[in-house]
């Protein structure tokens, strides 16, 4: 059995998603199979008809901090971080924590194209303050400011694998003793910039997306944030913290293949899954579910299926797999963190959530597609995988604490 000083415990989770604020809202929305995918309303960027997205209609207030202007991305991150930290803030060394917060959009939500025509004029006309939130480090800085953290706060931006990677990097930091606790996760808001980008690549599905379906047409963008409190299991036990899950293994790889397309055989992704299982010391049969990247784009989903076939070769039964992006869209830098939260909800509620709109899945003997409705099933060990533009992949393996001796 691994020593508790080497195991990383999750002792806090904060989530704001298109289902609303909190893990309960996420859990009940998933359980009810409620899709959040609807036509865009929160801004008008000139599309007709408006694209299908998953948006958060109203953001709860979080107050102010001197010298800080929050972008929508920052705002989401702060909400999730405040909730994640709720159970840890009384801990004597909590303020020595740092934060690793992923984002791809950051403050681009606040910036209009007019900035490039005449920047000085744009700043004079009121754009100066909003531009301060441009950098990818700003959501992490905002989390640090709102929680009073004294440790390092930095941003991670590796496209759609960002949120999961932030968790993996923070796990390394607590495991190697760099910080007693770390907050980690991801945040991204809907923005005209990213909608425009994915639209230009013809990657958007005009209807609610259908990940892994033979008729899939693309993705829908979403927004949200999820932030976790990470500490060693030893530290968590010393302060009698409630352990929500153990992060047992993690791995990061790169396809080294193409700027936007995944490796056609899913080699980088399967290697990240295999490395995470090796680190966790679990065999493919021990993993009971994979929350997939599952964007709904033609190239991603095929490569991902091949990755599962490679990573779980020799497993006794097909692997249960679903994409919960079919509920709340692709939240980019937040996606990996939100999907890690979904995986932990699945484990704690013994419920595997399906892929909505999936009726005619890609055929694979290695995969047990979860469709139509939730499946009640104990889940002691679950995995979530993320991939992104630029070939980045991250796999995370969680387990319930009581399962430690059995794996």
């Amino acid at each position, binding site marked *: 059995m691994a020593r508790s000083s080497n195991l990383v415990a999750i002792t806090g989770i904060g989530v704001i998603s298109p289902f609303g604020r909190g893990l309960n809202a996420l859990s009940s929305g998933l359980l009810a199979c409620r899709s959040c995918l609807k036509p865009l309303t929160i801004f008008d960027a000139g599309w007709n008809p408006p694209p299908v997205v998953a948006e958060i209609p109203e953001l709860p207030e979080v107050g102010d901090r001197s010298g800080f202007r929050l972008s929508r991305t920052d705002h989401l991150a702060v909400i999730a971080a405040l909730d994640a930290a709720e159970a840890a803030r009384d801990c004597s060394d909590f303020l020595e924590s740092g934060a690793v917060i992923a984002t791809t959009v950051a403050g681009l939500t606040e910036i209009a194209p007019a900035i490039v025509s005449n920047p000085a004029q744009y700043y004079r006309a009121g754009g100066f303050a909003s531009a301060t939130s441009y*950098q*990818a480090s700003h959501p992490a800085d905002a989390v640090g400011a709102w929680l009073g953290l004294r440790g390092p706060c930095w941003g991670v*931006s*590796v*496209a759609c694998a960002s949120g999961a*990677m932030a968790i993996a990097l923070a796990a390394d930091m607590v495991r190697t003793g760099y910080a007693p606790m770390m907050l980690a996760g991801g945040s991204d808001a809907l923005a005209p910039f990213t909608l425009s980008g994915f639209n230009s690549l013809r990657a958007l599905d005009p209807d609610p997306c259908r990940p892994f379906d033979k008729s899939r047409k693309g993705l829908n963008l979403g927004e949200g944030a999820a932030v976790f409190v990470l500490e060693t299991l030893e530290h968590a036990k010393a302060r009698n913290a409630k352990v929500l899950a153990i992060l047992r293994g993690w791995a990061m*790889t*790169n396809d080294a293949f193409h700027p936007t397309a995944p490796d056609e055989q899913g080699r980088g992704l399967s290697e990240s899954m295999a490395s995470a299982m090796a680190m966790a010391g679990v065999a493919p049969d021990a993993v009971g579910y994979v929350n997939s990247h599952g964007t709904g784009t033609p190239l991603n989903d095929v490569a991902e299926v091949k990755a599962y076939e490679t990573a779980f070769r020799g497993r006794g039964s097909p692997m249960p797999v679903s994409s919960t992006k079919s509920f709340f869209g692709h939240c980019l830098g937040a996606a990996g963190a939100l999907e890690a939260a979904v995986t932990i909800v699945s484990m704690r509620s013994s419920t595997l959530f399906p892929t909505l709109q999936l009726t005619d899945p890609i055929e694979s003997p290695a995969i047990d597609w979860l469709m139509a409705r939730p499946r009640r099933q104990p889940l002691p060990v679950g995995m979530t995988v993320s991939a992104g*533009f630029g*070939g980045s992949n991250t796999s995370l393996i969680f387990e319930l604490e009581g399962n430690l001796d059995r794996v």
Partner: protein
Amino acid sequence: MSPHQLSITGIGTVSPFGPLRGLIGQRKTELRTVTAWPTDGVRRAFLVEPFRPADVVPGLKTRRLDRLSGWCLVATALALADARLDLNGENRSRIAVVLGTGFGCIELTEAFLQSAAANGYAQADPILFPETLTNAPAAHVARVFGIRGPNITLSHKGLSGEGAVMQAASLLRGGQADLAIVLAGDTLTRTMYEWFEAAAVLSRAASAPAPVPFSPQRDGFVPGESATAVVMESADRARSRGAPVYATFRTGFMASDPNAGVSVARRALAGSSPPDVRMVIASTNGSAALDDLEGATIREVFGGEAPVIAPKTFLGESDSCGILRLIAALSWADNQARPLAMLLGTSLAGGCAALSFELR
């Protein structure tokens, strides 16, 4: 030597000195006049003179890439060559790429916004979008050099270079990789320059003679731009393959409070004393607030017992120049009896850092 000691075995830079392999040497640079965008009068910065990446790395294709991506590719090629590293003999799944950047691919982000301004968001240019992503430079390094290990891009405001070193060290010490290519870089663009002007943080030297950090005449900073790559691996590994070692990273600490400099610098000394320090590499840039803050740290921790160098005097200010400051300072080191270099980073908006290195 502890396996946790991590050696820098290869250096590649694209800076105001041009593209260089290995140490920069005691060279001089000069402020260049901004010509890339229309300015109201003369504007100067420590700029990288335009060059063709393929002239440095034959066959390298960078035409559609952000300048930062191109520079990172050139710097990586130079660093790998400098480290005498044959990737064909390496397990490329065990090599990490870590990039620290303050602003990422801001040049093509501006171009994408220009496209949206001209044609509307619904008709923006599809060629540009993937190259606007902050992780594009590190991803191109992975693609071009076939590197399949962890590929990380982080942003930590004015400590982005220091953060990249710390992150790479965490990966190597945590067993996630055997070797890391540590990159740090930022380009200077019109939206940035004019934001600095609007914030009134630039020195008059941007349109007059150069500022001097710590001097009574200091009145702000002059912006710079660069990309730096270093190869980092365990000291044992470096020794076993006979690699050149420029410096060995011992330890580092960061804090989100810029006033915590004394505490992080003392922790980074890690049992050594100021007379062991061959050089304190300051991040002072000519702005009074930053100079005063870091100056107080240097006075309190090092007294008058360690020489101080302020490389932003000749490199300019950019969020990710921490590694370049280290590389530039190494050429100016004297008093070989002293074993340590202390890299300080202070960012009024991002916190502070202190990283200690053992020198050859």
